[in-house]
């Protein structure tokens, strides 16, 4: 058993999938409603937004940074879409504009971090306030209805029996995984996270890469916003408040090193799934939501603890 545990250290994805399966089995042993098609479809819809944010967050964390602004950028994108639709712009064009705004906010994060030499925690903490504030200013605090066919389809439609948000998640993770494991850009992300000063000596354009990394995180926030608008059919400016912490937690639970330079993006999806399963499972079992928070907190700490034990073995 002990041997198996240490063998799994070289397969982080297998390890976290195993943990997720154990949690799923435990909950389904306690409640017959958990492992049903209906509940599973529900679970995937619940997990989709955090999962998309976690994909972008993974890139940032592997590069040695952090992005606290994803929830606010999501909200800014959503109200941009809502405001444009409200003012007679077609939903498709409004979506493109909204995604552009979200990506631009991320780009600004990158410029502030790379060129202004502001630590990512501070820069994105600032953007967390700015983006949310702008969202409130645009709307004056009002939520717009967006009952258009496009958003109703994204929120409630199905394709081959699966809810549409799942396809967003699949594309986000497939693209990110390919980028990180097979592209020059991805290799540079790992290099910068592993050692920034060595990366500079390799001739890597570290500043340019950082700007791209945070712009990408903004883009993922904007994509998550499109799914969010679809699910809510409206754009409240206080949407997704505090969701950045869930996205970061998903990355950490999945096992990506907070120190940067290591990790596989697919584990972040499993991390998000584990959090959603715990919430969903405890709801089915009738456990109070207050206790759910306690449990998720414990899971976060335990995940890093186990990771430390594994990496201590590595040295």
């Amino acid at each position, binding site marked *: 058993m002990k041997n198996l545990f240490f063998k799994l250290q070289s397969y982080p994805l297998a390890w976290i999938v195993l943990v997720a399966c154990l949690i799923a089995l435990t909950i389904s042993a306690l409640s017959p409603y958990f492992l049903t098609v209906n509940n599973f479809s529900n679970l995937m819809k619940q997990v989709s937004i955090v999962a998309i944010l976690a994909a972008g967050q993974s890139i940032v964390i592997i590069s040695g940074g952090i992005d606290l602004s994803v929830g606010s950028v999501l909200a800014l994108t959503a109200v941009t879409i809502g405001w444009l639709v409200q003012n007679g712009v077609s939903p498709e064009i409004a979506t493109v504009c909204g995604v552009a705004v979200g990506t631009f906010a991320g780009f600004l994060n990158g410029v502030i971090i790379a060129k202004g030499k502001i630590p990512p925690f501070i820069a994105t903490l600032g953007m967390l306030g700015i983006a949310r504030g702008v969202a409130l200013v645009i709307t004056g605090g009002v939520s717009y209805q967006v009952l258009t066919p496009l958003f109703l389809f994204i929120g409630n439609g199905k394709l081959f029996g699966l809810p549409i948000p799942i396809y967003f998640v699949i594309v986000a993770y497939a693209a990110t995984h390919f980028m990180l494991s097979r592209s020059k850009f991805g290799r540079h992300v*790992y290099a910068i996270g592993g050692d920034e000063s060595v990366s500079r000596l390799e001739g890597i354009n570290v500043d340019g890469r950082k700007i791209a990394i945070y712009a990408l995180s903004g883009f993922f926030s904007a994509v998550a916003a499109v799914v969010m608008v679809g699910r809510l059919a409206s754009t409240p400016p206080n949407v997704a408040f505090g969701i950045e912490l869930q996205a970061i937690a998903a990355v950490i639970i999945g096992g990506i090193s907070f120190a940067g330079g290591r990790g596989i993006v697919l584990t972040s999806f499993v991390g998000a799934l584990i959090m959603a399963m715990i919430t969903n499972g405890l709801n089915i079992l009738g456990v109070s939501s207050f206790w759910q928070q306690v449990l998720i907190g414990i899971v976060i700490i335990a995940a890093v603890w186990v990771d430390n034990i594994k990496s201590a073995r590595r040295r």
Partner: protein
Amino acid sequence: MNRESPLENTTPSIRLRGVGKSFGGVSVLRNVDLDIPPGVIHGLVGENGAGKSTLGKIIGGYYSISEGSMEAFGESADPWTPKDALDRGVAIMHQELQLVPELTVAENVFLGIEDHRLGVLSGTEAERLMPIIKATGFEVDPSAKVADLSIADRQKIEVMRALARSAKVIVMDEPTSSLSANETQKLHETMQKLRASGGTVVYVSHFLDNILEVCDSVTILRDGDLVRTAPRENESKDTLVSAMLGGGRSEISFPEKSRLKERRTALEVRSLSSANGTRDASFHVDRGEIVGLIGLVGGGRTEILRAVIGADKSTGGDVLVHGEPYPNRSIAESNRRGIVMVPEDRRKLGLIMTMAVRTNLTLPHLPSFATPLGRILAAAEKSKARDAIDHFQVKPSDVDGDILNYSGGNQQKVLLAKWLLRDPEIVILDEPSRGVDVGARRRIHEAIAELASKGAAVLLVSSELEEVLGLAHRAYLVANGGVFDEFAPEGKTEVDVLRSLFRLQQQPPEARAP
């Protein structure tokens, strides 16, 4: 040292028995026995990497010992952290000064031992400093902010800081490297005052004249071994230098030096200066030639290399590559032009320790393994990495091995292989064989000679004189950021070179004609 007199207190201030130290499996200090009596100034000398700084830091509590035992004032020094050392009266003054720049001189001196009432500071530091300033004769303003002071002034603060803690033993690690002759004289007077009041100074220095001027006894180290400890009267500059180099050092054979028929200058550096200390450096390297830069640690060798390749901005002078001026240098542009630098300190500057062997090897060369859109061609990358691993005999030879788990020698091979992957025309090597075993070193030397025989221009910096003399066709001496005294290594001994080097280092930069 059997000079015990019944009249003196015979308990040594510091006693080391069989002390050894290793870093990550590489032994840097072995079986050192040393007694330092109270009331003396004791010198520690040796070549770069001989272990003198390490020994100083062990006494000061900054390094724990790997083997053997240590006593301070007759009691076991275990545990021995910097705080333990300070509590027991042993202070250390670092090569890299450790002061808080935003606090004043007086606040820094009394940092951690301030007068206070229930945690509220009394603000008496400036008054308390006055006796120390009087005793040392240092001219510093107690209320000046440390950030505004020169390095020399900061060094004085370190001395006062040790005195304020009534240290009985003060370890000074290269304290005079940035002091003027006048200030050095002042520091020596301070040492003598300390000795007169019963204190002990452990004086680690490259400057043999300084050691001979002020020390009572000297310990000479070579390659981590203690050669001898002797009273100062028994030593001269010549005896010190020959002991530091050692007579019967095992002869390592070097690959043969080949020459290209046609001599063409590949790299020419004219009056190069940079903000971080390169001063008016001029030299050139031909195709197929290995040229050494020889200097002491802190002499500005690495800084010259960084200015040449474009890692640091230059403030004057020109670099010509194959006769063409190369302005606005950057690392990325240098790599494109076939100029690479293998940096020293593979862990901090050379390799990305979180990555695998393959990804480290190809990192600076990704454009040649990627489509224009940036997709990496995995098969091409893998086969190139395979070739490099086989060529350098990296072990284990796994392409996707975790670089963290490799030995120092094999990491160093990977570092070299990385920069030589695409047959560069100009190669700058900074300490290419530091901290590696004999086998790896031989393979590295062969690779360097081979590189030159194929027509590359090689600029080599190494603290190991033997290596430079054995590999290089020509060499220059480097001191205080400048390049001097071109010579051919044939017929030169390490003693000759080291003598001229100590002579250069001793002169203030302005008094020396290039």
